[in-house]
């Protein structure tokens, strides 16, 4: 299997850094064979994005850190199941991270109020983590989000960054379910075209 050629049949977006993308795939394949040094490199590439998206959804810094830790350990545990033919390493890992974040907010829904109170007393130093490096990816995404209609952008960000189900999005916006469904799909397709499929 190794060294691998990029799979031309596999749909993927033109990454801000395509070589880095391929490199991450290769690293994750090595992690799947128990390579701890490769995992350190994967950690350094994925910890920021994983923590970032979890933080967006979960919000509470302490809980976000917990979930991020679980997710990164999951990346180690399940790396052998990553199949580069089915999608990029980044997509594989971000899917795990986003789903875990949603699991956390859904299962903790009952306990939320208590946690929000606790969070209010946490030191603002926790928010140092907000400091982020400006990335090319962020710029690209911002530009493409800007190309959507306001309604599409709102639905997509509520669903993905807010971690809401589309039923919840429809309720929040007072819009019919079917409308939200097509709005999200149309918006994502427009984003896909804007980000450019390689």
């Amino acid at each position, binding site marked *: 299997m190794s060294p691998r050629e990029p799979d031309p049949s596999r749909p993927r977006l033109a990454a801000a850094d395509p070589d880095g993308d391929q490199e991450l795939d290769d690293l994750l394949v090595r992690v799947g064979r128990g390579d701890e040094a490769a995992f350190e490199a994967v950690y350094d590439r994925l910890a920021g994005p994983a923590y970032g998206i979890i*933080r967006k959804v979960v919000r509470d810094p302490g809980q976000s850190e917990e979930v991020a830790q679980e997710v990164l350990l999951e990346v180690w545990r399940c790396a052998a199941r990553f199949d580069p033919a089915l999608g990029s390493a980044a997509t594989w890992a971000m899917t795990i991270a986003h789903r875990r974040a949603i699991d956390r907010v859904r299962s903790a829904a009952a306990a939320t109020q208590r946690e929000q109170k606790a969070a209010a007393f946490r030191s603002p130093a926790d928010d140092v983590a907000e400091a982020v490096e400006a990335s090319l990816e962020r710029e690209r995404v911002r530009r493409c989000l800007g190309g959507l209609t306001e309604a599409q952008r709102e639905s997509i960000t509520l669903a993905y960054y807010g971690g809401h189900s*589309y039923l919840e999005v429809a309720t929040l916006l007072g819009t019919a379910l079917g409308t939200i469904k097509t709005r999200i799909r149309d918006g994502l397709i427009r984003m896909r075209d804007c980000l450019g499929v390689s």
Partner: protein
Amino acid sequence: MKLLRHDLHTLTGVYALDALAPGAEHDRFIRHVRRCQACTAEVTGLREVATSLALAAAAEPPAAMRARVLAAVGRTRQLPPEMRSRPKPRPSGFRLSVAVAVAALVAVAVLAIAQVNTSRQLNQARRQSQAIAAVLSAPDARILAKPTTVGGVTTVVVSPARRELVISASGLPVPPGGQVYELWLIGPPRVRSAGLLPAATAGHIGPVLATGLVAGDELGVTVEPAGGTSQPTTTPIVVLPLP
């Protein structure tokens, strides 16, 4: 039904954003996607968009997390790769082994009926046996077999369309200290118990029916305290990726 299918197709977007909550609609969509190549391709593409949204939200993780994760890695065992068979023509010998394995499962099911004493047990065993037969005879039934880490082999017949599977095992050691073998459906969203394996009769366990499969589930077996647990507490002795 045409309208319904169209509705299902437009769910690719919300699914790619993990905004399709677990439930009947989610399950219907997953079944639809399995048969719809265009949907699979679309979901894959839209997931890459979701990835870009995630990458754009990157934040500096707490510095202490790195050392904690790396330390945890040093003591965490990795899961084996999935033995997923790529779509390719099956050798004819495989078909034969399916027939043999199915025949063995049916024989055991019949034997189980022969061993009951009361009519209530008989009815229950019959129902169970009918449910098992339905899986075994499902047009999309696939057979999987894998040795366990403690010895013996598990054999599974799974019907993705019915979202059911039948598992049997032979040659497994009796778990020590009154412990039991517990079945798990290991899914991307969560791990669910699928019940306990009964004690072996003449070295053979099962067949046991497990229901409520979700796409992406894997079947795992662990050794657990008597009565079972709600979440696995030990490393699985076998994990079978399901089609």
